[in-house]
């Protein structure tokens, strides 16, 4: 029976916040599963040029619709078979990971910047600024993203840049909402008053007092928005208004495989499962980060 040493008066009470966070992250099953899957997909995406067995764009019309290796007609030449133009499905899938991830992150970045600026400004300045931002949020929320992005893409033509821009310009609402309330909350705390009383400029307060303390919700939203963007791009591509072929985004692959749904189901199940796994991973990660950084878990 080890006697506790009762800490001396001025002893530091615990580990640093960073250490605690690390410990909680490592102990959180969802985060770990999500991180492993996402890490795997990221790795495959980055190393696609090295890993892909074939050129993802190389067609071989004589070799169309080869089924995957686990079916009777499959071969190791094309482990996941080929698509309607005889392109190697595995290679396309690997490059598709690049595209889908790029869209997710790029969109989340654009919308993140727009939404955070709006949300923080509304939360911090309140009053008219808040009124305007809230109004913009209401406007934005009242327009279905998918409808607007479909319409805009239909008018402008579909390409990677357009899709990323359109989604980026549309998906800022959640950032704005969350950042607004997080900022309001932080703003009312005494350390902001203290910084203000110390003579800090508004800019400095925003950057060094507010922003670091709204980072956690920001990261959570950003993660979930990556998933949202990936999903939306997939839906746009599915409806034929996403990235332009022959770029292999996963949504586009599902869309292309749609014509073969009934008889060559693997063409939609494989990219579908990949998309599902990616979204699952990001969501697990986002949820996990939310759990880990939730106030009740901090103390």
């Amino acid at each position, binding site marked *: 029976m080890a006697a506790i040493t009762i800490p001396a008066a001025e002893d530091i009470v615990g580990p640093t916040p960073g250490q605690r966070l690390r410990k909680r992250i490592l102990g959180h099953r969802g985060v770990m599963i999500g991180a492993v899957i996402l890490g795997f997909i990221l790795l495959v995406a980055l190393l696609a040029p090295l890993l892909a067995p074939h050129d993802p764009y190389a067609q071989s019309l004589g070799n169309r619709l080869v089924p995957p290796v686990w079916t009777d007609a499959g071969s190791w030449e094309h482990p996941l078979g080929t698509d309607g133009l005889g392109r190697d499905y595995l290679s396309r899938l690997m490059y598709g990971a690049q595209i889908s991830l790029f869209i997710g992150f790029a969109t989340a970045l654009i919308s993140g910047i727009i939404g955070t600026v709006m949300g923080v400004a509304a939360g911090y300045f309140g009053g008219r600024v808040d009124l305007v931002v809230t109004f913009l949020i209401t406007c934005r*929320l*009242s*327009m*279905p993203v998918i409808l607007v992005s479909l319409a805009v893409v*239909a008018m402008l033509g579909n390409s990677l840049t357009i899709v990323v821009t359109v989604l980026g310009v549309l998906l800022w609402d959640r950032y704005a909402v969350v950042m607004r309330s997080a900022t309001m909350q932080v703003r009312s705390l005494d350390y902001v008053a203290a910084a203000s009383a110390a003579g800090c400029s508004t800019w400095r307060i925003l950057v060094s007092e507010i922003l670091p303390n709204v980072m956690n919700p920001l990261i959570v939203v950003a993660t979930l928005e990556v998933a949202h963007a990936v999903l939306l791009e997939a839906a746009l591509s599915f409806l034929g208004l996403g990235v332009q072929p022959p770029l292999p985004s996963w949504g586009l692959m599902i869309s292309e495989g749609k014509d073969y749904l*009934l008889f060559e189901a693997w063409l939609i199940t494989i990219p579908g499962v990949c998309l*599902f796994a*990616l979204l699952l991973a*990001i969501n697990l990660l986002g949820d996990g980060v939310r759990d880990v950084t939730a106030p009740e878990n901090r103390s």
Partner: protein
Amino acid sequence: MLIYTAKRLIVALLVALTISLISFGLLFLSGDPATTIAGESADDAAIQAIRVQYGFDRPIHEQYFAWVGRALQGDFGTSFYFKVPVTHLIFERLPVTLGLGLSAILFAIILSIPLGVLAARYPNSMIDRLALTMSVMGQALPSFWFALLLIMVFSFMYPLLPPSGSESWVHFIMPTIVLGYYATPAIMRLTRTGMLEVLGADYIRTARAKGLKPRTVLFKHALRNAIIPVVSLSAVQLGFMLGGSIVVETIFALHGTGYLAWESIRRYDLPTVQAILLVFSLIYIVLTFLADLLNAWLDPRIRVG
């Protein structure tokens, strides 16, 4: 109350105006709609005639004000494609979309609220884990893919359900599930966190200290308070479902507004697209307004200030 309603009305109007500007802005992007209206084999004269007939030769702001003026009287113009009044078209198809949306939100609520309550009542139990897994999976499932899988399995491999049409309620089963499951995780989580929070509240302890039965505590004291944010969320989700209906209605060939929107976009049927955008946003605004009223009614702190 009156002032409040009036204020909301003004905001709604402003939102509608903004949306109308945006949707009208699409006209700028679209180039010349006259060719579209004329169809594949129309000649130049026909196109020019249409241009004059629809007023596309006039300056854009003039067109906009003319459009707003008519829209205020409930006239959204004539569909380029169907050549019938857009208002007529939308109102004919709205019931399908609203019916689908309502059944989907009902499906989501019926599934997620009890699950959320149970998960909060027994945190970290099997049921909690199950609910959590379901919600994470649900968020990650692309609805178009899910819909195709459902069709593949339940209409083709085991032909139990019709894959298309809106003749009877059976036709709505798969669309309802596809549209509804996506709202389930959010509502379930909110119920769960709300319940967890409420169950940890001081007044729950007070209720228990009075010796009340656990059931009374759970349903009378806890759920009543936890449900309030769920109401708003459900309204918001119902609003989101209008967007989701585009994909679902297209796949299941339900002739609702969502499908109309999608087809109109593809056909450059701008009056229809504009009107649908506007109607969707108005519906959303009305829904959130109703949710606020319902909330106010549920929450005495708002009701009796």
